[in-house]
């Protein structure tokens, strides 16, 4: 399926090409955030940095965990742990669509051979008090990227608006390599497959997520993260507060996977996580808004 004459890119080469491409376009190439999160958007480089007037361009891989998507390594498409490639550009450049399409070309997708489409898909994260308009990008009918112009984050209007790209790396790699099973992906060009790296991880983690995780301990962790978040907010430390909000969010996802949160309780837990995340964004805004207003005349929170 590759359009280059040579062998299709391995997963790691695809990542390296994307790093090289976005680095060349002026993005900071950051490393994954060292916490368990459900999506690249949770990385503070996106959430917190999309607040305020300062220009910000960054790209990074974010390992993402969705405990309920685990399939014990038996489903060829679903994983409880996978990689997202995230690009955030603030303000959104006028040619962001072209930049994105060139990044596809850089990893070997030829838009004259493959049908690339921008299909309406608006994004909303009640947890983060955030929403934006954009598309899911289709390649021959497959969603390969989420493209969003953030309009609000943490309940604040984005001034200016940031553009966000989220590539589903495994999907894109499966597509480029013409592979039907994620575990068959070539991780590198020396014979190591994705399955060799991650299959056992999926099996064990699925078992732990669904069957083993100590729910009393998880409930306790949730409570502690909530308290610690508040402790940080009281001390006017938005970044550690936000980390605790992320922690609470992931622990909630684990509790969900264990099936111990009833439908009725669910809304209340989600409300708690939302309050923590929003509280952290508000504290972040609060901490910097005067400085920003001074450095960027005309800007207000």
């Amino acid at each position, binding site marked *: *399926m590759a359009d280059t004459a040579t062998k299709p890119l391995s997963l790691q080469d695809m990542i390296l090409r994307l790093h090289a491409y976005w680095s060349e376009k002026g993005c900071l190439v950051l490393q994954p955030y060292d916490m368990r999160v459900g999506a690249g958007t949770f990385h503070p480089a996106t959430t917190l940095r999309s607040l305020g*007037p300062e220009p910000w361009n960054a790209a990074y891989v974010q390992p993402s965990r969705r405990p309920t998507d685990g399939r014990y390594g038996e489903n*060829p*498409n679903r994983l409880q742990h996978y990689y997202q490639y995230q690009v955030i550009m603030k*303000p*959104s*450049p*006028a040619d962001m*669509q072209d930049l994105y*399409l060139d990044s596809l070309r850089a990893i070997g997708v030829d*838009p*004259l*051979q*493959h*049908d*690339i*489409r*921008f*299909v*309406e898909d*608006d994004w909303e994260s009640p947890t983060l008090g955030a929403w*934006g*308009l*954009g*598309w899911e990008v289709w*390649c*021959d*009918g*497959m969603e390969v990227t989420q493209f969003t*112009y953030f*309009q609000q984050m943490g309940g604040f*209007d*984005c*001034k*200016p*608006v940031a*553009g966000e790209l989220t590539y589903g790396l495994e999907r894109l790699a499966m*597509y480029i390599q013409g592979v*039907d099973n994620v575990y068959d992906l070539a991780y590198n060009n020396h014979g190591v497959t994705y399955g060799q790296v991650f299959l056992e991880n999926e099996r064990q983690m699925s078992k732990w997520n669904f069957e083993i995780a100590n729910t009393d301990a998880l409930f306790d962790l949730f409570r502690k993260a909530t308290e610690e978040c508040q402790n940080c907010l009281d001390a006017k430390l938005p970044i550690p507060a936000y980390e605790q909000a992320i922690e609470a969010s992931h622990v909630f996802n684990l509790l969900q996977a264990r099936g111990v949160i*009833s*439908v*009725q309780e669910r809304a209340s837990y989600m409300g708690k996580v939302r309050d923590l995340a929003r509280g952290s964004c508000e504290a972040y805004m609060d901490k910097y808004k005067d400085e920003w207003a001074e450095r*960027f005349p*005309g*800007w207000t929170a």
Partner: protein
Amino acid sequence: MTADFLLELRSEEIPARMQAGARADLEKLFVKELAAAGLKAGAITVWSTPRRLALIARDLPLATQAVSEEVKGPRASAPPQALEGFLRKTGLTREQLTERDGVLFAITEKPGRATRDVLAEAIPAIVRAFPWPKSQRWGAASFSPESLRWVRPLSGIIAILGDEAIDLEVGGIRSGTVTRGHRFHHSGDVVITGAADYAARLRDAFVIVDHAEREATVREGARAAAQAAGLVLVDDEGLVVENAGLTEWPQPLLGRFDEAFLAVPPEVIQLTARVNQKYFICRDAAGNLANAFVCTANIAASDGGAAIVAGNRKVLAARLSDARFFWEQDQKVPLAEQAKKLARITFHEKLGTVADKVARVADLAEWLAREGVVPGADPALARQAAELCKADLVTDMVGEFPELQGLMGGYYARAEGLPDAVADAIRDHYKPVGQGDDVPTAPVSVCVALADKLDTLRSFFAIDEKPTGSKDPFALRRAALGIIHLITENGLRFAVAEGDLLTFFADRLKVQQREAGVRHDLIDAVFALGGESDLVRLLARVSALQAFVGTEDGVNLLAGYKRAANILKKEAASTAGAQGEGVVPPTGEEDPLALVDDPLFKDVAAEFAHSEPTLSYTPEPAEAALMTALAQAAPQVEQAVAQEAFTTAMASLASLRAPIDAFFDDVTVNDADAEKRANRLALLDQFRAAVHKVADFSRIEG
């Protein structure tokens, strides 16, 4: 002098579903802005693609008309104060006024404006006021919250009148004469000289700007692709429009999927293909779902689309294998087991769980069968079907495709070997969903469909969650409408509701029957008699009534009724006024026989009640005729109504028409003789009472 005007608003991809609305809004706003300047185009064409909205206005005048406005002032000989006042008002000097026949006039010549200048102001105004359902800010300008909003970032504007570019600016975007062609088939600028070459230049750049043409390409191309494969496309105009809204150079392509997937119910395949992938599906010559799909690409690929089809096939296969996995997994758990999980799902905080609802529905469904409300329904099957009807809500398939609720339950029930009547009832219990949807007629299906909706209505009314205005969060109006359809199409005879809920049904019935051409005032007239909760009987009566009031007899009888009612109303008002203080109002119990409940006494009581008053005067012929006619018609009407022979009841009423007309022509009600007057008023009252046995004619319009 006129010229054609071209406007193109180019942006990043506009959602397909918004394009038709945007075209209509663009035309409306453009016409409005032009009209405000006194301009009107010969004809307006609006086109859309995912990346542009375009408008061509033909034969636009190049300038607006010069207008001369004349304001009449005081006479030249008027006192100075009057002149001063006029000058102040008009802002002119005495020398600027014109004198005609001794009167002063202020004349202002408003020169015509160049249309170019009007457009340079109008276009930015249109862009700023554009009513997108959702819009966004973008880019560096969004530093300010007041920055321009558009559906997606706006990237360019072309405005050309004749061959002259109109210079304008909105949100930092300057107009020009340059656009872009197809995203992949063309690079660089496309220069446009005017309305005349716009579509052709774009076509050279692989963009079909006319959406109708793209729709035709998709429609016909998809059909042709199916036909070439020996198949028949399942037409889907929604998909045609959506795919045309996603492409500038549409290329329908047919692909195949693994036949093994055809084991999955066809509705699942169609839904997956349609909703998730926007693919058409095909049938074979025998009418069965074929293992083929038609996707619509936006490029003419150099390999003829082989890679595109292969990619799409893979995506569809992944989705279908998910669906097949659900289909197989779900069948491992019997519906009765699945139904137990409903106890974990809240239906409504005040109404308990879905399992609680199911228990109520099962009782009601069984009752409807046992009491014979739904003739021929087996009570045990009705209960069984009702108990399982919501079980598919917890299956994986319905979790993935909520639209398949009911349908999947039906499939799973059949796969389990449950009776067809049960499987059908589960499948159809949400029906009818909307106007034109099939109404269940199989007895067990009717029981469950009716019980589910009746329970919903009764439950929400019981906790006072009634629809208000435009708010109907629990879709109670739709439920009521569904019940009305079930009752009327199956001729079900029972009291559907009482109190508030019955009034709610009456309102829904009026809305529903309006489409069938039934007059709402006639429904009111029958409901006004009080408490008619048998909708079948009610509609039969309304239908006979509508036929009757359409006849000459009916029209005249209604006129006679209104006249009688007016006289009686005036009389009642004057009697009430005359009563004054100290008069004990009648309680209705003055007649000592009224409360007697002895069956042997009934005839005696009836005789007293019907005894003819003895008159001390000889009634006039028309008066006597009316007395005779009433004595005959009143019991006939009553009997016919009791037998639900409403047409006969109307015929009996019709027999009163000539006598009542003659009575009003020949007899003076308000006679000086108190006895005559009293007898004649009593006659009118009897006439009104006879009419009221059919309907409250005072509610009938006209």
